[in-house]
């Protein structure tokens, strides 16, 4: 009964429930991913992996904000060659789909990392396009429809697994980027990554993050993330993973109603690694109370006029 209500098929993958671990949260090791899966996640996303190892930025890398967290990790990751072993091992211990998050500094790099991830066993690839593009310093690939298209096209050609593009909210109109990703072949979209933000300590008069600027996550960004999902769902049929500030079942349901077929949860995992189970129970109770037979039935209902 439980799996009936919450089970979904997402971009061709079958998920026992629509709650997914967001990238960058405990996402390095197979053992951590397994633990999160045991906490009730329907799928898990790895930390974003690039072509070669990166140590990331020095601490402070995480600062607390009013209703969320600011982070600037600097994409620490062991590089896909080393990480492929972890993917292989993860596939032997995980009972839920494994999405590998991928980033790169060029379309070719994205494609190459993605194809290695798929070779190692990734069930899907999520493109993290919120990182600076080398040719146009400072801006993100995810802010330029042109670069985004190129990255998605090349990666799509290189992998035979679902390709999910995780969009940045730091844009004037997210539907422009959504359209670029969809037309270039994205099977699904994740909306959204963190909002660019910062914090300054008044005593030392210094930015707190070692990288000065970082990404805001958690409840503070939920209304923005929800609007992004709504904007995309208003215009496109593409499957969407809602992400940003989800803490309880109500938040998750808001995203389903806005048009998301599944949700990713990040920051809230710190408080409770059973958060997936708790949220699933809440969604189920809600669906029962409202007499729905499946979570699929409520997707996009807030768009009814």
């Amino acid at each position: 009964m439980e799996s009936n209500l919450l089970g979904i098929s997402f971009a061709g993958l079958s998920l026992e429930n629509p709650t997914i671990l967001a990238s960058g949260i405990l996402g390095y090791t197979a053992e951590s991913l397994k633990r999160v899966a045991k906490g009730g996640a329907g799928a898990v996303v790895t930390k974003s992996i690039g072509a070669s190892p990166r140590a990331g930025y020095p601490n402070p890398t995480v600062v607390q904000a009013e209703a969320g967290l600011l982070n600037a990790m600097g994409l620490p990751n062991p590089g896909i060659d080393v990480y492929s072993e972890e993917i292989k091992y993860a596939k032997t211990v995980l009972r839920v789909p494994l999405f590998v998050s991928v980033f790169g500094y060029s379309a070719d790099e994205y494609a190459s990392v993605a194809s290695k991830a798929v070779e190692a066993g990734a069930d899907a690839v999520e493109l993290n396009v919120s990182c600076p593009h080398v040719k146009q310093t400072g801006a993100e690939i995810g802010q330029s429809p042109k670069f985004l298209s190129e990255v998605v096209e090349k990666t799509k050609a290189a992998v035979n697994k679902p390709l999910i593009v995780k969009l940045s909210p730091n844009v004037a109109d997210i539907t422009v980027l959504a359209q670029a990703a969809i037309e270039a072949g994205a099977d699904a979209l994740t909306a959204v990554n963190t909002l660019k933000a910062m914090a300054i300590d008044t005593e030392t008069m210094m930015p707190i993050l070692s990288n000065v600027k970082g990404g805001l996550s958690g409840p503070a960004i939920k209304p923005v993330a929800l609007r992004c999902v709504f904007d995309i769902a208003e215009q496109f049929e593409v499957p969407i993973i809602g992400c940003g500030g989800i803490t309880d079942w109500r938040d998750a349901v808001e995203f389903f109603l806005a048009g998301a077929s599944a949700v990713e949860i990040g920051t809230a995992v710190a408080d409770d690694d059973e958060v997936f189970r708790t949220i699933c129970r809440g969604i189920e109770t809600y669906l029962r109370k409202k007499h729905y037979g499946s979570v699929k039935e409520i997707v996009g209902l807030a768009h009814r006029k």
Partner: protein
Amino acid sequence: MPTANNAIRMTEIVNVRTESPTVKTFTFTDRLCGKAKPGQFVMLWLPGIDEIPLSIMDVNNGLVSVSVKAVGDATRHMHNMEAGTLVGVRGPFGNSFIESRGRVLLVGGGTGTAPLLFLAKQLSAKTERLSFVEGAKTKDELLFVRELDGICSGKNLITTTEDGTAGLQCLVTQPLGELLDKERFDMIYTCGPEVMVKKIFEMTEQRKLPLEASLERLMRCGIGLCGSCVIGKYRVCRDGPVFTAAQLREVADELGISKLGFDGSRIPV
């Protein structure tokens, strides 16, 4: 997520004390950490330099102390800090040692002695017997000998040095083996270099003795999110830093062997 203990508080170092040629103790005031329990740690922000995890060595009337060994940039910077320097504090984080009654044994190596001193102070009045084995390279590096001597009332404190300049000339594990065979202990606590912890874990396992060990891993968020500090399925910052023998068994293939480096790859401990 937003919790009072995770917000950075700026505070001044009010006192610096030299404990050994390589270790200094820094004291500052902090309301939340003033309520910390032995085993918990803070993330200390050294503006412009780094933010590092440090075990709480003592709390006393809102005054919080950490003992720091100079090993790299951040810790060397701290050794040059004077009273009045502003630092940022988050925490206290992590779990703590579980208080035990009866006969307890504490085994410390290096700055691992710091949280055990805090624990010893708390346990001294409550336990039947409190024994402490402390090891160091050389006499000068034996930390808190006077304090521990007072707490353990003399003959229950065993010290070892590798060069024999004080106490027994051997590794800390040598007198430990004899002690464990000779006496019955209700609980053993340890903190120190991971190879030492691992050896002690093996010794207590052999003898089917209970153990709590505090571990160290690379820490970034300190709140169980970023995954930098994982050992097996556990997050050292949140599920630890104190682990029981049962938990250590689950992570035996990593304990004393591998950890995650800054880039998230597995590197030797």
